[in-house]
């Protein structure tokens, strides 16, 4: 098989289910359940940090994750202080935050705030523990933090109940390394599937209170929220795509074995 034929096969296996949804059900995994229950147990009026630590390349996974998490937080009347430690995550995180906040009629400055972008994760995470205003004198829109009602009451990690990192890289680990080690803040991670296996030790040791991984994780979370979204939409295409990859591995190995026998 030529490589273009393989490409067409994978394209077909992903595209056809988008036109013919089968309505397949999926099981919710314990780690997503734990994530959900941690957010669910937050008292109304608490404040969490949501860090959009991803780039535009993984938007297909991180957008459903971010939207599901934000919808849950706003539905629980939890205030959100958000930031990004990656430049592209800044623009994307800000637009996701505003979209979901508008859905729930939340007010900027009272119910949520977007601090903006800071590089150098160590200095940012540790600095936020001392004083938000020292790290971010102004928010993303240029307002002084001292003029914003949310940050007048919540000035550092003492006022924060939980830290959630929506990420496509190593940053959730650094939230544990620096924010949890020094300030004992619980951390939740919503990550792309490629990073999910790396974080199971953190989940097992309790350093992560929950873990949502990839588009499947987002679909499970949406099922728990009772609000199907972008995660659920892609599940059948994902199923057939996986079957196709497994079939290609098997066919490739069989043709290799047959060719070896002939020699």
């Amino acid at each position, binding site marked *: *098989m030529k*490589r273009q034929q*393989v*490409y067409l096969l*994978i*394209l077909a296996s*992903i595209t056809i289910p988008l036109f013919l949804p089968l309505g*397949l*059900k*999926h*099981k919710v*995994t*314990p780690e997503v359940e734990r994530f959900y229950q941690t957010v669910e147990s937050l008292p109304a009026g608490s404040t969490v940090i949501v860090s959009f630590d991803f780039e*535009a*390349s*993984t*938007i*297909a996974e991180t957008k459903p994750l971010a939207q599901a998490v934000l919808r849950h937080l706003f539905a629980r009347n939890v205030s959100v202080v958000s930031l990004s430690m990656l430049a*592209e995550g800044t*623009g*994307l995180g800000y*637009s996701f935050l*505003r979209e979901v906040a508008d859905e729930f009629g939340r007010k900027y400055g009272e119910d949520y705030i977007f601090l903006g972008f*800071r*590089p*150098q994760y160590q*200095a*940012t995470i*540790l*600095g936020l523990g*001392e*004083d938000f205003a*020292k*790290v971010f004198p102004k928010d993303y*829109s240029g307002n002084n933090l001292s003029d914003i009602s949310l940050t007048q009451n919540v000035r550092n990690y003492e006022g924060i109940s939980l830290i959630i990192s929506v990420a496509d890289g190593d940053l959730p680990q650094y939230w544990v390394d620096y924010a949890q080690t*020094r300030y004992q803040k619980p951390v939740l991670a919503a990550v792309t*599937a490629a990073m999910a*296996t790396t974080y*199971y*030790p953190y*989940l*097992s040791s309790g350093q992560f209170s929950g873990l949502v991984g*990839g588009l*499947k994780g987002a679909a499970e979370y949406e099922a728990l929220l009772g609000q199907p979204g972008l995660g659920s939409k892609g*599940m*059948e295409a*994902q*199923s*057939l*795509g*996986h*079957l196709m*990859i*497994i079939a*290609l*591995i098997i*066919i*490739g*190995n069989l043709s*290799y074995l047959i060719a070896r026998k002939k020699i």
Partner: protein
Amino acid sequence: MLVQFYFQAPYLDHAYQQVLDWVQIIYLFTLGVGAINLIKIHLKKTTFRREAPYSAITLTGILVMLFFGLLQGKETGSVFDWVFKNVQVPLQATMFSLLAFFVASAAYRGFRARSTEAFVLLSVAAIVMLGRVPIGNLISDNIPDLANWILNFPSMAARRGILIGIGLGTVATALRVISGIERTYLGK
């Protein structure tokens, strides 16, 4: 920075916070060096006939973002925001989506179960791939449970071993940097 973790003193705390603040600014300049270097390279490439049009596109992209971003602002509805959402994000997302095709091609051409280890790797991959999608549940109720068990126990144990190894290496390297034994970051 190491000492202040273990001792409480006002002057140490103040120094710690000040240094954290300063390092963020200095770090940004290191990223800026990369950006400036890129601009230098593309300016040079505009003198080569074959690459000139492409380098001109790169430089135009940089100038458009700088001009509109700094003068008009970055709020929703601005040119900066429009270019980010309708040019940068789709291009970046599509660039990475190509990997799906390459993974499929590699799966057919390259993933051979030539040894027991490779067979174990491919089998576990197949179980996890099936277990993590609804169709796995349709084939058998046990597949998602098996995938979950693999992720939470043997895979997790191996990753924990790697993590502890990396942690020991990180601490050792950090101590070598602090004591001046390790100076490769200076180019020595």
